[in-house]
């Protein structure tokens, strides 16, 4: 398969402008500014079928089209480079090794909504990646791809690389905007949506790194070439980050609809050390775990993973072998969400810590009868009752672990110890 997103990865000095340009870089940007109206660009991306790669899978062209054209306020395009989902490290690879692809995609996105200021909000911990992005933005300014009168047109655009400061929640788009406004990363109630009331109350679109990085290829080769790849509703290619008990962890680019089992066994070399698979999370730490027999017929596209009872999410695949204690795994994720809850909505603020405490006591031999149902009850009271999707993300993993490995959880409670041997 021809690589779209990883096309420059592995090339010497892939992060520099010279290398990027020698591989056709910024030709799409020139084409967009020189010959396309914003409406045409939006239609082209709609026709490509590209869906947001941050987790929700919302159609990108449609997201842009919600920005009102007659609104006199400034408009903002924000590239979400705040990658923090457990098990996900695909954006980091692009940020560090192909920053110009992200920048070119950001410019194209900004042009689509006629924004004159774009931000790249990069995760604070990714200091090296932020330096590469900043340097790449400088290079693009010097080459005239960013700035005033781009390619001799009347279009002006500034790009600001902005570093976060350590908070998972800032990957949620309204939290990211609160953070970019200089405040705590607190999500905002939707509606109104960012498309009409975003950064500083102005029309704003937030797109994920991977989404934007696909744009230069789509504009170069055309929507039809992109939509020829993938399945009926999941077009193109997607990056998958594979980690845990797997022989060849790493970032892979697959055509949407690729068989999950084949991917794990052939492309990734199967479970490490010849052990058996016990469970796999397909879409990052906030998505429900799947059992080995549940993935037999699953293909890696939005619809197929959803039909199996999980979600494709960020494409963060976490593999767990037969030696894994599932109570401990559930506890690990529950602790993560308890740590990262922003504290705004009480079901999430209280519920996440409560679930963590219960899972902790089960793992350490102090579980009580009724604990499992109590966790399911708490999870059920968080999901859907918070202003942002974090509540669902925190509620799904413990619920799925308990439903799928109930015997193991019950044994921990009954025998008052970790029955897997930790």
């Amino acid at each position, binding site marked *: 398969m021809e690589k779209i997103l990883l096309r420059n990865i592995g090339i010497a000095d892939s992060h520099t402008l010279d290398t990027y340009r020698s591989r056709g870089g910024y030709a799409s940007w020139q084409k967009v500014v020189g010959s396309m109206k914003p409406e045409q660009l939006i239609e082209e991306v709609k026709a490509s079928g590209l869906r947001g790669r941050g987790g929700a899978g919302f159609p990108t062209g449609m997201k842009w089209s919600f920005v009102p054209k007659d609104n006199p306020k400034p408009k903002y395009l924000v590239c979400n480079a705040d990658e923090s989902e457990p098990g996900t490290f695909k954006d980091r690879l692009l940020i560090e090794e192909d920053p110009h692809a992200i920048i070119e995609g950001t410019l194209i996105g900004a042009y689509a909504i006629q924004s004159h200021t774009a931000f790249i909000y990069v995760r604070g911990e990714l200091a090296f990646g932020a330096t590469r992005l900043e340097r790449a933005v400088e290079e693009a300014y010097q080459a005239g791809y960013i700035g005033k009168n781009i390619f001799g047109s009347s279009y002006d655009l500034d790009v600001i690389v902005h570093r976060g400061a350590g*908070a998972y929640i800032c990957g949620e788009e309204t939290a990211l905007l609160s953070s970019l406004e200089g405040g705590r990363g607190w999500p905002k109630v939707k509606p109104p949506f960012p498309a009409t009331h975003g950064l500083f109350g102005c029309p704003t679109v937030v797109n994920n790194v991977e989404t934007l990085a696909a744009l230069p290829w789509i504009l170069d080769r055309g929507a039809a070439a992109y939509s020829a790849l993938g399945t009926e509703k999941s077009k193109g290619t997607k990056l998958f980050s594979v980690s845990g*008990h797997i022989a060849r962890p790493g970032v892979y680019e697959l055509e949407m609809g690729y068989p999950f089992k084949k991917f794990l066994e052939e492309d990734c070399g199967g479970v490490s050390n010849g052990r058996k698979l016990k469970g796999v999370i397909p879409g990052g730490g906030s998505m429900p775990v799947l059992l080995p027999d549940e993935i037999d017929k699953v293909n890696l596209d939005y619809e197929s993973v959803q039909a199996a009872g999980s979600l494709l999410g960020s494409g963060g695949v976490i593999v767990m072998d037969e030696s894994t204690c599932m109570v401990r795994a559930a506890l690990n994720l529950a602790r993560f969400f308890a740590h990262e809850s922003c504290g705004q909505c009480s079901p999430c603020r209280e519920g996440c810590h409560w679930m963590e405490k219960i899972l902790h006591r089960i793992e350490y031999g102090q579980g009580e009868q009724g604990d499992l149902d109590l966790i399911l009850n708490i999870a059920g009271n968080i999901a859907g009752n918070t202003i942002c999707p974090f509540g669902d993300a925190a509620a799904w993993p413990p619920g799925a672990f308990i439903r799928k490995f109930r015997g193991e959880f019950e044994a921990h409670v009954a025998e008052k110890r970790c029955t897997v041997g930790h």
Partner: protein
Amino acid sequence: MAVEFSPAALETFNAIVARYPKKEAAMLPVLYLAQREFGHIGQEAIDYVARLMGQSSARVYGVVSFYTMFNMKPIGRHHIQVCRTLSCALRGAEMVTSTIKGKLGIEPGQTTPDGRFTLSEVECLASCGTAPMMQVNDDYYENLTEGKIGEILDSLK
């Protein structure tokens, strides 16, 4: 000693603020600057940044305390942050923490008496494919083994 920016830092401050469409948006980069200048962001630094930014100390405190990368107390020269989230946990994050604890004689959250190291356990650092890993100040150290950890710690003076 009054907490305030050097003339050079003030110049950087003005350049940062000028980049943004609104002054308040410069809060995080200004706090990074404050942390670089003062080592950590204590109450005096919060009050100072609040004055510079034209905001209340309470709001600045709210921001500083929200984000994990702002240190409200002094920390060691080398801040070791071990990722403990699931992918790293599956591949030996606990070994990393216990090796460091053993070598340095400190628990997570503590600083060595000589001020050389602070140890923290943190959540997913987007390095899951190269687990287990740790971050020391701005640098990532990946695919860690006991031997490698020893060498890294010895090299950090």
